[in-house]
């Protein structure tokens, strides 16, 4: 596939995603989905931890990891910020604002802003920790175990970008009998989270997390868009495969792929509408 086709496809993809995002938002706003999001047990623990934090007057620990705005994992940082916003807000009755930690310096202003905006309670002492630095930051993990460990948070909500160093944090949390929810957009971190955390989300579920925690219909719209795209991708792959296997056409030629993309889009949209109607 030549560069031009790739670029055209990319633009098409971005445009279609934009349209889908807006449509899903509006649609969701009007009637709401009759289908529900599949249950994810991890989210059910959060309110309990939140209550515990309020009662014990300890800060919850919310961690961004190395998710950073302005960098390649901006999307993760945004999804995190959204999730943390809801958690902080729901935790506002307590005396101690949650401790946020990050290893990406650009996230510090974001985290500060999040606490300021979402924390409706008293004090409002900003409790944002930065430890050096970046991806796979053992300094960060060690900092969390040593410094934030001193604050004895009842639970750690580690939703962001972590590498294998997550193991250190989870181990120390377990040792101090603190709850943990972990998810990472890095696979090594994800694997460690799966093996060692009390609760775990898998990969993409992070991006749908705001929808779960807030119960906000509009947040769920993103999950729907991802579902639609995923279905479309699956259709696309299958179609490309069938065409390729048939070997009748000089497949992977640019125009053909565009045709396939458009057909796939239309098909997907139709299928989707039908399923909604039902």
């Amino acid at each position, binding site marked *: 596939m030549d560069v031009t086709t790739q670029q055209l496809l990319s633009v098409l993809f971005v445009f279609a995603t934009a349209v889908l995002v807006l449509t899903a938002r509006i649609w969701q706003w009007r009637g709401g989905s009759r289908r529900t999001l599949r249950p994810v047990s991890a989210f*059910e623990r959060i309110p309990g931890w939140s209550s515990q934090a309020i009662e*014990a*007057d300890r800060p919850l620990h919310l961690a961004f990891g190395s998710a950073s705005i302005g960098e*390649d*994992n901006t999307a993760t940082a945004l999804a995190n910020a959204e999730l943390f916003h809801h958690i902080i807000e729901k*935790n506002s009755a307590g005396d101690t604002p949650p401790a946020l930690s990050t290893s990406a310096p650009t996230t510090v202003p974001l985290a500060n802003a999040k606490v300021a905006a979402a924390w409706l309670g008293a004090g409002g002492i900003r409790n944002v920790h930065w430890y050096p630095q970046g*991806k*796979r930051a053992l300094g960060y993990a060690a900092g969390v175990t040593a410094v934030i460990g001193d604050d004895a948070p009842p639970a750690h909500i580690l939703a962001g970008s972590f590498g294998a*160093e997550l193991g250190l944090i989870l181990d120390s949390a377990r040792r101090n009998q603190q709850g943990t929810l972990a998810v990472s957009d*890095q696979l090594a971190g994800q694997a460690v989270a799966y093996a060692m955390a009390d609760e775990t989300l898998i990969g993409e579920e992070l991006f749908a997390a705001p929808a779960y925690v807030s119960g906000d219909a509009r947040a769920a719209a993103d999950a729907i868009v991802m579902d639609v795209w995923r279905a479309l991708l699956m259709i696309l792959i299958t179609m490309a495969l069938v065409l390729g296997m048939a070997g009748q056409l000089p497949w992977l030629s640019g125009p053909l792929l565009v045709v396939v993309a458009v057909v796939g889009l239309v098909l997907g949209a139709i299928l989707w509408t039908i399923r909604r109607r039902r």
Partner: protein
Amino acid sequence: MNDDYSWLEEPQPDASQPAAGGSVGQRRGLRRFLPRLRRRRQTSQPADQPDASQTGAGGSVGQRRGLRRFLPRLRRRRQAPQPADQPYATAFLGGQSERPLTELDQRLQALRARSLAIEHKEEWQELYDVDQALTSPALQEKPGGVISAVALSQAQQAQVDLLTEIVGGQADTAQRPAKRGLVQRAALSLPNIPRLLTSALLLLFVALPFVSSDYAPGALPPAEFAADDPQAVAFYAGLDSLSPGDYVLVAVEYGLGAAAELDALTDLALRHIFARGGRVILATSNPIAYLHAQNIIDSIRVRAAQAGLRLVDGLDYLLLNYLPGGGLGIRELSENFADIARRSMGDTPTSLPIDSLLDMKMLLLVADSAEDVRNWVEQALPEAGTRRLYAATSLSAEPLTRAYVAGIDRFDGLVVGLRAAYTYGAMLDATFGIDPQTAAPATDDSVATAPTGGEEPGASNAVEAKPSPTPLPTATPRPTHTPMPLPTNTAVPTPTSTPAMLRIVEVTSPQSPVNIRVGPSTAQATLGLAYKGDTLAVLDTNADSSWYKIVMSNGWEGWISAIVVTEGLVPETASNGDDSASIARERSVMSRFYPRRYGKTEPRFSQANQVPFSTRGAIVQLRERGAEAQRLQALTMGTVAAVLAIALGNLVAAIGALVRRG
């Protein structure tokens, strides 16, 4: 706004008043409620945590009823089941009204007051307010609505009362975790036995091979990459195909934490490139790796200098400024390569004939995480034309990287971990296995052969006087703009058979370093620096002898002010006759380049690439060899220990689970 939690957040209108049924006998106050919440959570923790149930001594079955029992029922009435089925304390605090406010202790009063003050902020202001425009007010359900009217049924009330009776006496035990009881603290601080066993097992097994060679199980890796690992073979072949003067972008993407695993691979790959006459551009998006890369390259350079091979900062290798912002920095590199290279060299005009990724022969990535691999694949590879990417990764990044190598066209070779490093080293030794002392000129395939003992380590000073062709790449798109002499210009005065005295100047200015300039005036651009004690060969002086024209150790000519130096004479033999002296002198000059002095200009030169191939191979031989074999055996033992620990631990757990169920 149909927010499923909004009902929880909405305070009841008469919330601050004592409720009608708020008699003293009804103990369902905040104080009663909160400890229960806590205790219930604790009993619901995994059963393997023995201490978890301690605080919940009264954690009878009865406790599990209560709030959680009736909450789902509340939810069901709403017909919009939500995944999160536990309530937030904030909501409860706001909704509590059964107990007179005055009975609460201060902290609870404060908590409650605050929770009432909290209004759910609604901040959705979309771009152009699409939602707002398209949504009629009728569709926006008011919060509160149905739910605020829900009360407890009689049965529920009875249950709750019963519960309150049971746990009532313990209600005041709500404590901060910080104030744990002594016994509990002691129990907490005791090392967890299974964990301690695991650690001991692991450490013991890993340590055994270092103690005695009896514990050395398993075969060492083969001397050549096996044919069933085509990606490793491709990696070696790719690097081996370099020809002199090729540029390779080497991305060093690992922190010190992975240094023990990846340093060996980085070191070998760099030596391989140098041995093939290639030039290295180092890049990293990790600040600590930036410093570490300096150390790696410096150690290679120092060792190489001992063999008379000069590797020169700025020509043979260049460490690009650290790229901030991960993928973003890499994107910036692929868009503005020339610019970053220029900045990395300070403001010295340079002969570096590269201005984009396309001038690279290949990209080589050393990374310890799949994320970094993804970043380079996503941000650099699409911009690199037809250049291929080779990768050396840690074991942890392997599974994902393999998915990439298999899936992406120009991602070609991959070597992984310490085992690969062992094999790689063996292969390099085999390829460049010529003893540097007895190098045969016949193997020289790239440069004009220097027939007179030029292969001897340390003798490159003599070689450099010979006009060998500069192996600069010729196919570079942009003409090199070098306002300064090329490295091949007469460097040190040509050695003659008769010993003669060489005119030198020694830098004596107390203010060190001093500038070496392009011309005899302080208005001229700075070419390099000289430090107190440096000696420089004099070629000429200007008319009034206020400036010396000198030759720098790299062969470049420059001017230095007479004010800062003292003139002298040395026997010329010292500069090229005695090997050890010349090496020592060489190293002392080299040490001026170490460490890099950021932002300052430094002389840059290249001679390594004019040294015959056979001698360049010495750079591979000159590496330090650690206890690689022992470490590999320790790795094997450690793996065995890990398997044992994991298998046994899980077996016990599985049996435990079965017993509990049966």
